C-alpha cells in the first residue's frame, strides 16, 4: 500500500471489501496484514435492521439530529421531482406566496443517477416551460425516422408503424436524459429552489401520534462495515416540512415504506416491473443515422418472456446511439439472466450491422414500472404524495414515462400549494387532478396492452400481445370495456429451479458483447467500502435456505451489477456475499427476490453510479447545421378529406428532408430521413414529373 497513484487507490478500494468480508483481514498503517477474528455469519449489519439503542458499541454516541424547517421537501431530483419543484416555485411567483422548497438527491450531482439516452415526448416539458427552447433545454435531436422490427434468430422482420400506434414517435426528441435533468435542476435553482445533491433521504419522520408524515431525515455517515461507529460518524439531519413529495423513481425505498404503512395499494393491483439496460455506443460514422428511432421485440427472448429493445441515434455532434433492452421481471425461469439476454441480442445480424465498428462507452441498468393504471397506488397520504415513476406512470408500449412524470410533478405541486394554503394535511386534490389529465387518459388507453401478453395463460406470449395490439387495441384505443389484470406480483411468478431448464449463454466477444464486471466498471459506480451493505436482508438465513436451495440463487443472475455472489466456504457450503460497492441502484433485487427478503435502503449520499449525462459545457456540442439545399417543393397532401398539391418550403440537410409550411416557419412539420426511403418516378397525364418517396 505504499504506492499511492490512482490505480493503486482503485485497486485497493476494489480489493479491500472482499478481503474483509471473506477472510477478515485488514491492513494496518505500515502495510502489514493482521488476521482478525473470523467474522460472524452476519450479512446484514445495517442500522435499519440492527437497533443501535440495544448495541453496546453505540452506548456513548450522541444520536441527536440537527433539524431544519422547510415548507416542501422533495425526495429525488429526477424529472418528476424537479418538475414539482419548478412548478411550486412558479406558483409562488404567480400567487405571491413564499415557500422554502428543498430537493434532496442522492446522486453526487443532479442527473448522475439518470440513465442517459431517451426518447422524450416534450408534452410535459412544454407545459412546464413553454419557452424551453430559449432557456436552452438540451433537446437537440428531433426524431426523424421510426421503425419497428420483430427479430427471429436470423432475420429482422419490419412491422408496420401506423400513426396512432404508441410506438410512433413523430414529434418526439431523442435526448440524454441526464442532461435534461441537470438542466431542470438549474432551472429549479434559478427559481429559488434549494437543490442538494449528494444527500440521501434515509428515513421518514412522523408526527407525535404517528398519523402523519412530518418530514425526512438524511443518512448518517461514518458507520463501519460491521455496524460500529467510526471516528467520522455524524448523524444525518432532519427536515421538517408541511408536505413531502416522494419522487424516487421506480420502486423507491421510502415509497415502499410509505405504501406499506398507509396501505396505499389497497384495492389495486401490485406494481409489475421490467429491468431496462442501456448502453451508449459511439458508432462508426457510416452507420450513424441521427434522429433515427428503432424499436423491436423477439430474439433472443423466448415468447414467454416479455421484453424488447430500442436503438436511438442521437444528433449532438458525435455519432452516439443509445442501445436499450428491457426484460419484463415477470419471467419464471430462475436461470434467466437479463444481462446476458441483452448481450446476446447485440449479436443478431440486424443489430450487429449497426454496431460493428463502434465502441461501447457507457452502460447502465434500472428497473422500470410496467403496471400502468391497474397498479397505480393511492397517490396521497397524510403529509405528502407520490409522483412520477415512484407511483408508476410509464406508458409501456410507448416505452415512455418522462412526460407523465413531469406532468404528475406539476399537478402534485398545484395540489401541495393548495394544501399548504388551506392547512390541509393531505394534498387530496392531486389524485383527482391526475385522473382528469392527459396522463391518465393515455395510461388508461394502453392499459390492456402489457397484460395482453398473458392472454390464454401466457401461451401466446409476445404474439398474443402483438395480436391484441394490432387487432383489438388499434380500433378500440383502450375503449374496450374490460381491463386485464397483471396476475400477481413479479416475484411470485418465479418458478423453482427444479422445474426449469438452465440456460447456456455464449461467452462475450468483447467487441459487441461484454462481461458483467467490465460493464459495471463503465457505470463508474462507487460506494465507500467501509459502510454496512445497503442491500439489507430481513433474515440472513433465507438466502442459503430458500433462494439458493429452491431457486438456485436467482439474484446472481438478475442483478445487473454483480452484487450478489454465492461463494463456497472451506466446508463446502455456500454463503451469500453482497458486493455492495458494485450496486447501481436499479432496485431489481428488491423487486424480484422470490422471498422478498432483500430490502434496498439508501447508502451514503453522493454514492452510486456516475452516468455521463451531465450538461456538456464545450463548444463542440452545437455545430450549426449544414444546409445542403433549399427550395420549394409541391407535395400531395390530404387534409380533411380533400387531396391536392401544396407548395411547401423544403430544406435538405444531413441526409434529411425537412418540410415547412411556409418559408418563414420556425418549425418543420414533417421530416423525412432519406436513406430510409426510395424514390420512384411516375408520369401523370399532364406530362409533369412526379416522385414518390
Amino acid at each position, binding site marked *: *500500500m*505504499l504506492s*499511492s*497513484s*490512482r490505480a493503486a*487507490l*482503485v485497486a485497493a*478500494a476494489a480489493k479491500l471489501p472482499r478481503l474483509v468480508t471473506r477472510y477478515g483481514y485488514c491492513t494496518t*498503517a505500515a502495510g502489514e496484514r493482521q488476521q482478525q477474528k473470523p467474522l460472524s455469519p452476519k450479512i446484514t449489519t445495517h442500522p435499519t435492521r440492527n437497533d443501535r439503542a440495544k448495541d453496546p458499541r453505540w452506548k456513548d454516541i450522541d444520536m441527536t439530529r*440537527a*433539524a*431544519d424547517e422547510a415548507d416542501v421537501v422533495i425526495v429525488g431530483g429526477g424529472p418528476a421531482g424537479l418538475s414539482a419543484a419548478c412548478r411550486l416555485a412558479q406558483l409562488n411567483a404567480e400567487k405571491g406566496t413564499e415557500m422554502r422548497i428543498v430537493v434532496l438527491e442522492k446522486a*453526487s*450531482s443532479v442527473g*448522475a443517477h439518470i440513465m442517459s439516452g431517451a426518447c422524450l415526448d416534450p408534452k410535459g416539458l412544454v407545459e412546464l416551460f413553454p419557452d424551453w427552447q430559449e432557456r436552452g433545454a438540451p433537446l437537440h435531436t428531433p426524431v426523424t425516422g421510426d421503425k419497428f422490427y420483430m427479430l427471429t434468430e436470423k432475420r429482422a422482420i419490419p412491422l408496420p408503424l401506423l400513426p396512432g400506434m404508441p410506438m410512433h414517435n413523430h414529434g418526439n426528441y431523442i435526448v440524454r436524459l*441526464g*442532461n435534461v435533468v441537470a438542466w431542470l435542476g438549474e432551472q429549479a435553482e434559478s427559481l429559488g429552489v434549494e437543490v*442538494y445533491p*449528494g*444527500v440521501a433521504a434515509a428515513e421518514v419522520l412522523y408526527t407525535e401520534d404517528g398519523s402523519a408524515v412530518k418530514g425526512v431525515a*438524511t443518512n448518517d*455517515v*461514518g458507520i463501519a462495515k460491521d455496524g460500529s461507529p*467510526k*471516528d*467520522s460518524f*455524524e448523524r*444525518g*439531519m432532519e427536515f421538517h416540512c408541511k408536505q413531502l413529495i416522494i419522487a424516487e423513481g421506480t420502486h423507491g425505498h421510502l415509497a415502499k415504506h410509505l405504501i406499506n404503512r398507509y396501505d396505499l395499494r389497497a384495492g389495486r393491483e401490485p406494481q409489475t416491473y421490467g429491468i431496462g439496460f442501456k448502453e451508449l455506443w*459511439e458508432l462508426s460514422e457510416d452507420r450513424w443515422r441521427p434522429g433515427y428511432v428503432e424499436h423491436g421485440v423477439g430474439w433472443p427472448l423466448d415468447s414467454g418472456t416479455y421484453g424488447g429493445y430500442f436503438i436511438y441515434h442521437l444528433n449532438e455532434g458525435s455519432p452516439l446511439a443509445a442501445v436499450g433492452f428491457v426484460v419484463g421481471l415477470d419471467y419464471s425461469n430462475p436461470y434467466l439472466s437479463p444481462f446476458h439476454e441483452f448481450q446476446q441480442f447485440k449479436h443478431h445480424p440486424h443489430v450487429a450491422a449497426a454496431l460493428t465498428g463502434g465502441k461501447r*462507452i457507457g452502460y447502465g441498468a434500472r428497473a422500470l414500472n410496467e403496471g400502468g393504471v391497474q397498479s397505480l397506488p393511492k397517490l396521497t397520504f397524510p403529509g405528502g404524495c407520490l409522483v412520477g415513476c415512484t407511483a408508476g406512470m410509464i406508458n409501456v408500449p410507448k416505452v415512455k414515462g418522462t412526460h407523465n412524470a413531469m406532468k404528475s410533478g406539476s399537478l402534485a405541486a398545484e395540489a401541495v400549494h393548495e394544501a399548504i394554503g388551506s392547512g390541509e394535511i393531505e394534498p387530496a386534490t392531486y389524485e383527482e387532478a391526475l385522473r382528469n389529465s392527459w396522463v391518465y387518459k393515455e395510461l388508461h388507453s394502453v392499459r390492456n396492452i402489457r397484460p395482453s401478453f398473458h392472454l390464454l395463460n401466457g401461451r401466446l406470449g409476445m404474439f398474443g400481445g402483438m395480436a391484441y395490439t394490432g387487432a383489438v387495441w388499434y380500433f378500440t384505443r383502450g375503449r374496450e370495456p374490460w381491463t386485464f389484470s397483471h396476475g400477481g406480483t413479479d416475484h411470485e411468478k418465479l418458478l423453482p429451479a427444479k422445474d426449469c431448464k438452465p440456460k447456456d449463454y455464449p461467452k462475450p466477444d468483447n467487441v459487441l458483447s461484454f462481461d458483467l464486471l467490465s460493464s459495471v*466498471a*463503465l457505470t*463508474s*459506480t*462507487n460506494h465507500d467500502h467501509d459502510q454496512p451493505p445497503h442491500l439489507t436482508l430481513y433474515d440472513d438465513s433465507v438466502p442459503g435456505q430458500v433462494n439458493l436451495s429452491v431457486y438456485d440463487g436467482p439474484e446472481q443472475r438478475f442483478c445487473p451489477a454483480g452484487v450478489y455472489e454465492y461463494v463456497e466456504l472451506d466446508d463446502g457450503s455456500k454463503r451469500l456475499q453482497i458486493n455492495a460497492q458494485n450496486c447501481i441502484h436499479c432496485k431489481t433485487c428488491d423487486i424480484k427476490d422470490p422471498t422478498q427478503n432483500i430490502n434496498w435502503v439508501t447508502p*451514503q*449520499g453522493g454514492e452510486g453510479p*456516475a452516468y*455521463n*449525462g*451531465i*450538461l*456538456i*459545457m*464545450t463548444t463542440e456540442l452545437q455545430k450549426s447545421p449544414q444546409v445542403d439545399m433549399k427550395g420549394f417543393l409541391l407535395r400531395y397532401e390530404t387534409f380533411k378529406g380533400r387531396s391536392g398539391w401544396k407548395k411547401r418550403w423544403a430544406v435538405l440537410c444531413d441526409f434529411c428532408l425537412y418540410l415547412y409550411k411556409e418559408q418563414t416557419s420556425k418549425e418543420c412539420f414533417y421530416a423525412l430521413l432519406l436513406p430510409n426511403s426510395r424514390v420512384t418516378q411516375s408520369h401523370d397525364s399532364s406530362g409533369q414529373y412526379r416522385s414518390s418517396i
Partner: protein
Amino acid sequence: YIHIINKADMAASKGLKILVGCKRVIDYAVKVRVKPDRSGVVTEGVKHSMNPFDEIAVEEAVRMKEKKLAGEAVAISVGPPQSQETLRTALAMGIDRAIHVEIPLAQLEKLQPIHVSKLLAKVCESEKPDLVILGKQAIDDDCNQTGQMLAALLDWPQATFASKIEPSQDSKQLRVTREVDGGLETIDVSVPAVVTSDLRLNEPRYATLPNIMKAKKKPLAKMSPDQLGVDLQPRQEVISVEDPPVRKAGAKVESVEDLVGKLREKGLVK
C-alpha cells in the same frame, strides 16, 4: 440548530495560519476514456471531485484548527469555474474561507505544476501563511511536483509525503513523519513550511448537509492569473495520450521441462 462561527473569535485566536491547496480532478472511481483524437481524456459530463490527497490535506488543516495548533485555515484552488464546488466541499469540511484562481478554459489543458506553484507562491506573498499543506500528487497527472516547486520558489523548508504532523519537542517547529521508500523518516521543520500529505495522514471526514449549508455563507474570493502576474505559457507539449496496451494472454505450462523448453524457444535461456 445551526451554529455560525463568530468571525471575531477567529481573529482573536493565535496559532498557525494554514493555506490548503485543492484540485478538482476526475473522480477516482470513474472509468476514464481517451479522446478519439488522442489529445487527452474525456472530461465533459464526467464526475469530478476533490483530489483524494487534497481531501486529506484539508482534513489535516481542520484537525489542527480543532487541536488549537492552527487559528485560520484557507483553501485555495487553481482551476476552471467548477473548482468552486471543490472549494465549497473544503469549506463544508471546516475551512474558514476560500480563494479561487480561475483559469480560462482555453488554458486549462495546458496548465502544469510549474504554473500552479508560481500562482500559489504569489498568493503566499499576500496571504503570508505559516504552513502550506498540499496533497502529495494529483490523481490525474500523478506529477508529485507542485509542493516541492512551491517550497523552492518560496525558499521554505518542505516535508513531503507526511503521515503525521505534530509540534516538535520545543514547540517552535513542526515534527513531521514522512513515508519514504525505506520506511518512515521523522524530521523537524521550521515554519513557514510546505508539507504534502500522504495517504495515511488521516481519514477525511464527510461533508454533511448542515455544514454544506453553513459553507454557503463562508467567503470565497476570486482571482485571475493576470492579477497575480503569472504567465501561463506551457513548458511542455502533450504529443499523444493513449490507452495502456491490452494485456496479451499468457500460456500455461504443465511441467518444469515445458517451462525450460519455452524459455529456450524465446532465447531467454541458453
